[in-house]
């Protein structure tokens, strides 16, 4: 597959000033709310330390906790399935639905099912899938993937949503008031929820000791998806396990402040066993996670609780519109997760960072994101994953720098040429640095010339 042209995609988004400003301002507002909420919790930093340590403990004893979780879930009456990859996950989910004659599925937001492309898989087999999270539904109606882990439609303005709903639902395109638009969605989605034959949720956490699948939503849509139909399916990445309820408390306290700047979501829901007269299926999914556990420098990325704080704070992500990444996980966490799946396809990702460390500073589970991004740059270098032009230029630079005489002659010549060359020649297509910046004025002499005049004979 071709490498994702992240910079090119982002340039197109940035050219649309209205959307760029909207996206940037919205995410920065969330970052500021996150800071303000964190400051009201005196033990905030201690909670981050605890969350990180609990995750590292669990991941380093994951076999034990997976087996414990499975036993607890079975004791509660749930059926536990295991999926090695996305394909197996989708086959299992489809199998459950097919065996029971279920043709309509309501779904709450789940990054894992995005990762597995579950919705298109099921739709191509005749299952009608309805996303019940408002943002996710907006993206579904517009045939787009989520642009942000927490706010799937954050890149859209209210005018965009009004236009979309007018097209899909016949609502008033001039009415851009968020309450009106949320009501339009409620009116059109509720009947689908009530009629659905099965529901699917993801999991924010899975508690080994109790077998609970825990979801965190503002809309109540996971509760509807998990309770209204008799068949409940929970898709769970194996890294979502935590040991006990006392540990869950730590994560419930740090997740929402990091994600939205609120203290808690409206619905923190615990699904342990099937509803009365129903059934509950839990699909535990690996899809590359067990392999990542063995990556010395990158395994801690599995601590991620998908809060999106690193996206909100990242100056590069805030100017990308999210969709520019063309991947399930974007921004800093995407930069450390995606290249492990396909180094060639995601080779631009580790470069899309200023390495300012802000992502690491806001991460509630203390993943050293900016350091891992830097490490991925080294991996890409070793794998030779860089564009053709960059390869030629770097090779040429390497040869030049290893011959001092040639380097001096070249820098003197470059200085002279830059002064006389026309603008179009200096700002040629290979000059990526100069695309959005003015080149500095050429120095009147090279450092070597200056040194020879001023320092060379001193101290003799």
């Amino acid at each position, binding site marked *: 597959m071709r490498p994702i042209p992240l910079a090119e995609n982002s340039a197109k988004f940035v050219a649309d000033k209205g959307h760029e400003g909207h996206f940037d301002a919205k995410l920065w507002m*969330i970052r500021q709310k996150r800071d303000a909420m964190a400051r009201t919790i005196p033990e905030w930093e201690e909670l981050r330390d605890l969350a990180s340590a609990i995750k590292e403990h669990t991941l380093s004893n994951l076999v034990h906790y997976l087996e414990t979780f499975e036993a607890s879930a079975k004791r509660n009456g749930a059926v536990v399935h295991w999926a090695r990859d996305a394909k197996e996950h989708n086959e299992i989910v489809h199998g459950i639905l097919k065996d029971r004659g279920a043709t309509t599925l309501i779904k709450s937001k789940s990054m894992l099912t995005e990762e597995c492309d579950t919705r298109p898989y099921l739709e191509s087999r005749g299952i009608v899938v309805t996303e019940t999270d408002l943002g996710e539904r907006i993206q579904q109606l517009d045939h787009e993937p989520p642009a942000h882990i927490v706010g799937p439609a954050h890149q859209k303005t209210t005018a965009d949503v009004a236009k979309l709903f007018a097209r899909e639902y016949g609502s008033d395109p001039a009415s851009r008031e968020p309450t009106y638009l949320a009501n339009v969605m409620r009116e059109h989605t509720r009947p689908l929820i009530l009629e659905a034959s099965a529901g699917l949720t993801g999991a924010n956490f899975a508690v080994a000791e109790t077998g609970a699948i825990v979801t965190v939503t503002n809309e109540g849509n996971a509760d509807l998806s998990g309770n209204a139909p008799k068949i409940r399916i929970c898709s769970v990445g194996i890294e979502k396990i935590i*040991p006990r309820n006392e540990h869950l408390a730590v994560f419930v306290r740090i997740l929402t402040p990091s994600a939205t700047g609120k203290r808690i979501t409206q619905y923190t829901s615990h699904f342990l066993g099937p509803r009365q007269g129903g059934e509950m299926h839990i699909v535990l999914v690996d899809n590359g996670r067990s392999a990542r556990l063995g990556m010395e420098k990158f395994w801690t990325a599995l601590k991620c609780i998908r809060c999106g704080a690193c996206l909100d704070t990242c100056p590069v992500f805030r100017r990308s519109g999210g969709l520019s990444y063309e991947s399930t996980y974007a921004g800093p966490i995407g930069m450390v997760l995606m290249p492990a799946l396909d180094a060639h396809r995601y080779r631009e990702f580790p470069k899309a960072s200023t390495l300012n460390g802000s992502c690491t500073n806001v991460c509630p589970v203390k993943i050293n994101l900016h350091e891992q991004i830097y490490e991925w740059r080294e991996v890409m270098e070793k794998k030779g994953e860089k564009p053709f032009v960059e390869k030629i230029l770097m090779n040429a630079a390497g040869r030049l720098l290893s011959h001092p005489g040639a380097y001096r002659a070249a820098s003197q010549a470059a200085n002279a040429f830059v002064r006389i060359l026309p603008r179009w020649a200096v700002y040629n297509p290979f000059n990526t640095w100069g695309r959005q910046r003015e080149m500095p004025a050429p120095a009147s002499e090279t450092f070597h010339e200056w040194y020879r005049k001023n320092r060379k004979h001193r101290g003799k």
Partner: protein
Amino acid sequence: MGAREEILDNVRKNQPCGRDLPAVPMFHREGRPVTETFAAALKTMAGETIERPPSDFAEFLQRRFPAAKNICSAVPEFPGGKKPLDFPDWASPAAIDVTVVRSPLGVAETGSVLLSEKELGVNTIAFLAHDIIVLLDPKRIVENIHDAYAHPAFRDSNYAVLLTGPSGTADVGGIVVHPAQAVTTMTVIFWPES
């Protein structure tokens, strides 16, 4: 080899050397009464707290929800027109205007109340109703989430939810609006258990 065995084998092979599990403090702090903290926290989530039971609950309901016809009561304090078990089909509580239910636990830090299938009977009455009223004995309010998770409902129930305000969304324009897919308003009444 089956998927389960292969996944567990790979995890066993790759998992890093064991790290210690830290002890989690309870983070208790001396402060204002839990009832005040609870009400203030719930207010930030667009929920309302009423500090004492109304003298005439039927009249209170009529005044607060004048258009409501379909009241579902899961509490002995008020008969209501419907009981949870009148809804064998769990999608049918969408017809409920107001659900009245008692919570066994409040959390001051967040303004949350616990509801499980034990209180609800039919879980969907808590979110398919248009509005919800939750009775809560102030003595049942704990200080924070750490205390809350000691409650047996989080290990013994098939379903338990910490409910904190009416459903909302900020997915359009980044502004929080109510409702989303579930209840439109949430009112907690401090009402001692009889």
